[in-house]
């Protein structure tokens, strides 16, 4: 046995006359799929979950794990700068007038510029100053997920799914031929999912704004009061930073204006749950849930 070359498994499988004792004893699992590499990190007052389906083995896997660690570190750094719960974060000090943008991390200026863009895109329904106080969290969480995804892509991952506090960025597929399936939570019937979005593009983002969001009152920027009329508003787009910020804006707009706005905008679909539990959506939603 020792002098025999290592069996070429592919050749052996195709061989016609092979004695059972010479067959390799390894199982060949063509129908098994390796579990995605998973990790979850409590940060930003919520939990970010990673599922990476192309982590691979050996040096490739090490590189992916390295990128995942970098992504986690990035989330924590973003939290240090932007957490409104930390007294000493750049954003908290800026909100109190104890510092200026020039003295903050360069990210702050970048984020505030993005918030201005989104405010323009949403006719002011999204704002970095909800109820008059500086708080760009509606942009930061999705933007943080995008950065994490970018770090994984740079390490070569084309198939992963990252969720953070109800926002999801899916890239590629869960398995070859099996898209990621992203459920939309039913805010009325707590043991149900309303629909499952089946990813079909290279990147898909699903974001939901609702009154059950942690601690946050989605504020109508025109009245300064909590927005009303909807239990939740879910947007499906391609990149989560914008999709999330737009979902916040669309929620504040309410069912009629929010769905009109979403329908008029390229590249997104929307599903709204009204106060009475009824559901309305843009025309492209049923195809996404097929």
């Amino acid at each position, binding site marked *: 046995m020792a002098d025999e070359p290592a069996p070429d498994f592919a050749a052996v499988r195709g061989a016609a006359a092979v004695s059972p004792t010479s067959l390799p004893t390894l199982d060949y699992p063509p129908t098994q799929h390796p579990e995605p590499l998973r990790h979850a990190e409590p940060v930003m007052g919520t939990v970010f*979950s990673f599922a990476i389906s192309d982590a691979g083995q050996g040096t490739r896997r090490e590189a992916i794990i390295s990128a995942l660690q970098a992504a986690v570190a990035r989330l924590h750094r973003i939290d240090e700068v932007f957490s409104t719960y930390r007294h000493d974060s750049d954003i908290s000090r800026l909100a109190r007038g104890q510092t200026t943008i020039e003295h903050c991390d360069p990210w702050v200026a970048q984020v505030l510029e993005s918030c201005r863009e989104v405010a323009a895109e949403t006719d002011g329904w999204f704002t970095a100053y909800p109820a008059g106080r500086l708080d760009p969290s509606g942009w930061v969480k999705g933007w943080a997920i995008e950065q994490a995804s970018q770090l994984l892509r740079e390490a070569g991952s084309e198939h992963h799914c990252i*969720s953070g506090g109800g926002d999801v960025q*899916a890239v590629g597929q869960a398995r070859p031929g099996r898209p990621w399936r992203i459920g939309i939570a039913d805010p009325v019937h707590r043991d149900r999912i309303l629909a499952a979005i089946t990813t079909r593009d290279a990147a898909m983002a699903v974001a939901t704004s609702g009154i059950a969001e942690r601690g946050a009152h989605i504020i109508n920027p025109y009245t300064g009061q909590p927005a009303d009329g909807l239990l939740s508003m879910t947007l499906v787009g391609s990149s989560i930073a914008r999709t999330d910020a737009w979902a916040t804006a669309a929620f504040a707009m309410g069912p009629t204006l929010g769905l009109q706005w979403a329908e008029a905008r390229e590249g997104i679909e929307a599903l709204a749950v009204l106060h009475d539990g009824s559901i309305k959506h843009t025309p492209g939603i049923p195809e996404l849930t097929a």
Partner: protein
Amino acid sequence: MRRAIVTGTATVSGIVLLLGLKSHGGGVHGAPQSFSIGPSTDAVPPSGTPTTTPSAGKSTAPARAASGTRTVAGDAAETPYGPVQVQVTVSSGKITNINVLEYPTETGRDQEINSYALPILNQEAMTAQSASIDAVSGATFTSEGYAQSLQSAIDKARA
């Protein structure tokens, strides 16, 4: 502070996706690992009815049953809204039940939010598992305090 008991049965892989629990050594300082706890084989429908009962408010000694079932309360975790404490039942290495022993109820608004949030936390995990969902987008109240207390309970149950 008024407390309520909210019960539900959850499968761990659903929890992993929605809450992101750390295994030992996970996080920035260690290589991320897959979770060894598998889905529950004896999921029961959630009761979903909150009842008001005095709660322990501190960690309890794990209760052991003949079948290797343990019920363990995690440390109460502080959140900006008040303490959150979670109790888990682990059977043969699988989480079969989660109770929320304590959650913030400072204002009427908090109660309103929590009446949506905590049952969603417990019950979404079960539905996600059964529907082959990979992730859930929702008005999901994934409280850091909840996740910390739940992680604490799991760590104690494993000890």
